[in-house]
Structure formats: C-alpha cells, structure tokens
C-alpha cells in the first residue's frame, strides 16, 4: 500500500479512448511500430501488451520508459486503452538532487578538514613572487591592463577551499528538470499514443 503513494514519482499512468468498435488487435497493430525499436521486447496477448527495454536508443519515442503494460478495457462507454509505464530516468532525476546535496556536504566537510593545514601553508607564497609582474611592450602599446598579483586573501580562499555552490546549483537544476520532465513526458507519450491510434488510414496496410 505504501508504494502507491510514491509510485507516481516514476510511474506514468493514463488512458485514451479508442475509436468505437475498434478491435484490440487493430489498436495494438497501430501502436506496434513504437515497440519495434532496438532494445525493446514486447508481447501481446488478447487485450494486453507488455514491453520492456534495455539500452534503448536516444531517439526512441519511448526511450524514457523501461517497462510497461498497455491494456484495453471494454466497458459500456466504449473501448479504452489504459497504459502504465515505468521510467527509471524519472526516478533517478528525482533522486539526483539528493545526490548532489550529498556532494555539497562532502565538499564542505573536506574543506573543513583542510582548513588547519592551509593556515600553516600561507607563509610560503609571500617570498617567491615579485611585487610587479612583467608586461611586454606590445601589450602596453595595445592598451592591455597592467598585470597585477591577485589579492592574497582572494587567492587563498579561491585556490584552497572547494566550494559547494556548484553542487547546490546542480541539485536545483535536477529538481527543475524533474518537475518539467514528469509533466512533459506524461503529456508527450499520451499524444504519441493518440496520434498512432488515430493514424491516417492511407498509410496503414489493411490487415488481411
């Protein structure tokens, strides 16, 4: 029972009405090209089609999904296609922010570990560098700014301590990507199924 409350994160379910009187065979025949892609196995039995994918191609229209079941239900209001699709990509995109937050914490932790040793090391650089960096006459003539030594504090901070900012940024990026993807992919697959089911009569060979 518990799984159902979080299943929606990476399970996409939906339904589409079929044309009245359309047979299951006809409906699945129209959808068949979607499953005839590299890395896809599918089997159809009566009103149910189940599929699974491995290493599916990038341009596969259903590449986001790794497995699923399509079932045609006949009720009073006409035949309806119910689909239940599973996407590991959506699950990992949902979990990715947690991973990057973990990286951020690791970065902070390591930065704190390093602090005592960098305080000792700051003595050295002072003596080596000259106070004025050379500038070639051509650069001076062309108006380039005179080179300056980077400020000591800035150099110590930037050079030594790793920043967790990038990890936080990526956590946010994946959170946004997940929100967009969960909605987008659900909408896209519905429209793909709809277009295939309604497909032009002229292009479909009439089954003998």
């Amino acid at each position: 029972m518990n799984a159902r409350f979080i299943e929606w994160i990476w399970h996409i379910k939906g339904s589409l009405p079929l044309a009245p009187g359309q047979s299951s065979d006809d409906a699945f025949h129209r959808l068949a090209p979607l499953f005839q892609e590299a890395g896809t196995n599918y089997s159809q039995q009566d009103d149910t089609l189940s599929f699974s994918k491995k290493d599916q191609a990038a341009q596969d229209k259903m590449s986001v999904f790794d497995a699923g079941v399509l079932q045609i239900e006949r009720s009073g209001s006409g035949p309806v296609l119910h689909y239940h699709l599973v996407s590991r990509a959506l699950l990992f995109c949902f979990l990715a922010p947690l991973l990057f937050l973990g990286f951020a914490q690791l970065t902070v932790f390591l930065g704190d570990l390093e602090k005592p040793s960098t305080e000792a090391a700051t003595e050295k650089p002072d003596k080596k560098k000259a106070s004025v960096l050379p500038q070639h006459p051509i650069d001076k003539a062309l108006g380039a700014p005179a080179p300056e030594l980077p400020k000591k504090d800035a150099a110590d901070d930037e050079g030594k301590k790793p920043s967790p900012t990038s990890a936080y940024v990526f956590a946010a990026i994946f959170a946004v990507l997940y929100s967009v993807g969960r909605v987008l992919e659900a909408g896209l697959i519905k429209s793909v199924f709809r277009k295939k089911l309604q497909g032009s009569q002229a292009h479909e060979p009439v089954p003998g």
Partner: protein
Amino acid sequence: MDGVRVGKRLIGTQAPVTVGWENIPKVEGGPVKQFVFTWFQPTVLFALIAFWYYAPNSIAKASTAIGIGIGFRVLLLALEWVNPRYESWRLTWKELVTDLFYVGLGYTILNLVDQYIGSDAVIEALQHAFDWDKLAWFVGLPLLLQAFLISFIFDFGQYWMHRGMHNWYPLWLPHSVHHYITQLNINKGAVGNPVELFLIGLGIGGFFDFLPRAALLAGAIGMAVSTYQHINVRFNTPRWWRFLFNTTEHHSVHHSQDFEATRSNYSGTYIFIDRIFGTCIDGEAELLGMEGGRRMSIREQMTFPFTEGWKTIKEKYGRERYARAETVPAE
C-alpha cells in the same frame, strides 16, 4: 560499402562517412540566417579574445570565465533548438538529463578529486620534491603569444593522449565508453568514464610560469573552438577556420560507426596538429556510436572499463578451471 581513400586508408567502409569539404551541405535559409551562421564562430572567438585582453583586473578572474562558459553553453543549446544539424541528433528530455548528470559530476565530485590527484596537484608535488622553479622567462612574452602557447602545449598533449587512447588497450578502456554516444549535443563532451576525464585533463602547462590572464585567454580560445566538437548545429564555417581548428564535422567523423574513421582527428582545438601527423580527415558523419549504435546506460559507462578489462585479463592469463586438451570436432 566502398569507402573513400584518404592517405593510405579506406574511410567509410563500415558506416557512411562524407569525405571532403566540397561534399558538406551548407546552412539553409535566408540571407540573415546565412550571415549569422557563417560569422558566429569567428565573431565569438575574437570577441572573447578582445574581452580577456582588455578586461580590467578586477573581473579577469576564474569566476567570470565560468560564468561566460555557462552562458555560452545555454546560448548554444538554444542554437541547437533553432538550427539543428540532424533530426536524428535532436536533444530529448532524457538525453538532456543524462548529459547534465555527467556535467554535474564534473563540476562537483570530479573537481574535488582532481584537486588531490589532478595535473596541478601532481606538478606542485614534483616542484616541491625537486626544488624547481617555474619557467619564468615565459611571463615576459606578449600576452597573446603566452595564451597561444599554453593552449597549444595543452592541445599537443591532448592529441597524443587521445591518440594513445585509440591505440593502446589500457587507455582505450576508459575512453571507449565515450564513443558509445549516438548523437552530438553541446553537453555530450562530458559523457564518459571519470578515469578518462582525469587522463584528458593531465597537462604540463603547470610547469610554465605565466600571467593568470594568459591562462584565462587560453581557456577562452579553447572554449571558443572546442565547444563546437559536440554540437548539433550546422555552421557555414569559414575555410581558414576549418584548416586551423577542430570542427563539428571533424569530430563527427571521429565519432562515426566506421572504425577507420574513428582513428582520426584526435586533437581538441588545433586540427593542424592532426594535419602535421597525418591523422586528419576532412569530412562529416551522421551515424555515430559503437556496436551498431547501442546506447550505453550511466551505470555501464562507469563499470564497463573495469568489467571489460577484467574479461581481457581472464582471457589472457586465466586458465580453464578444468584444464583440458583442445576440443576436437565430432565430425
């Protein structure tokens, strides 16, 4: 397939490869579009050089460079949307998420690890151990010359590391997974095993003393050229650019499903390094990848170099559990 003879090799016998600039299609569209996609690359390059040459010291920092880099990538993603090279390289949501995962790894955990074992750490350790000073005469050279030399020295090293990766099995293992990409998009350069990314990042530039601004310039030149390696955009790249610099076309040949074609165009920025050493093929390809275009999952990208290496070691050095004589056919 017949293939095309380039030097001593036949290119395009296993998968289609277009060879020769005269056979590359041009950008289609009105005069404005033509103008934009012809002059975009040189304009960006010279604008970046001018920026880094003249920027006041207060903004000539790494953080500015990172910001410009990110902004540039976003712009190029938009270009991919507007003027895609191939429909078969269209960026889908899943591809974008996967690519950004690799990019994210690079900016976070790999960056962290690199500080301990990367090129700079190694060079610093060496210098401390042997009481060397950096090569200080470098600093007095004109800024643009310093920048070019930094960029060229790094690319020269990259060329040989990359060529080594395509010729020596232990180096091929971590690099092989990158070649499973079946399309080029702006972030696909990051796709691959972290071990390879570490190797590619090794460089001897740290032995030279140079102005920090020269490093930023070198980085900008590198970015303004090598970003286009993995990109789904068609440009009408000027001929002089194609002669000097690595382009999307060159890199697509390197990624093609044709084996002989992949053994070419190894440099990152300066294709003339490939011309010098005879490994340049001018052309393009659309069909990319390995094993007929099988897409490799993230999990497999991380484990493949090790599992394949293990399999090879077992084959080479392992003995059958029940050692037996050569099997003889029944008939």
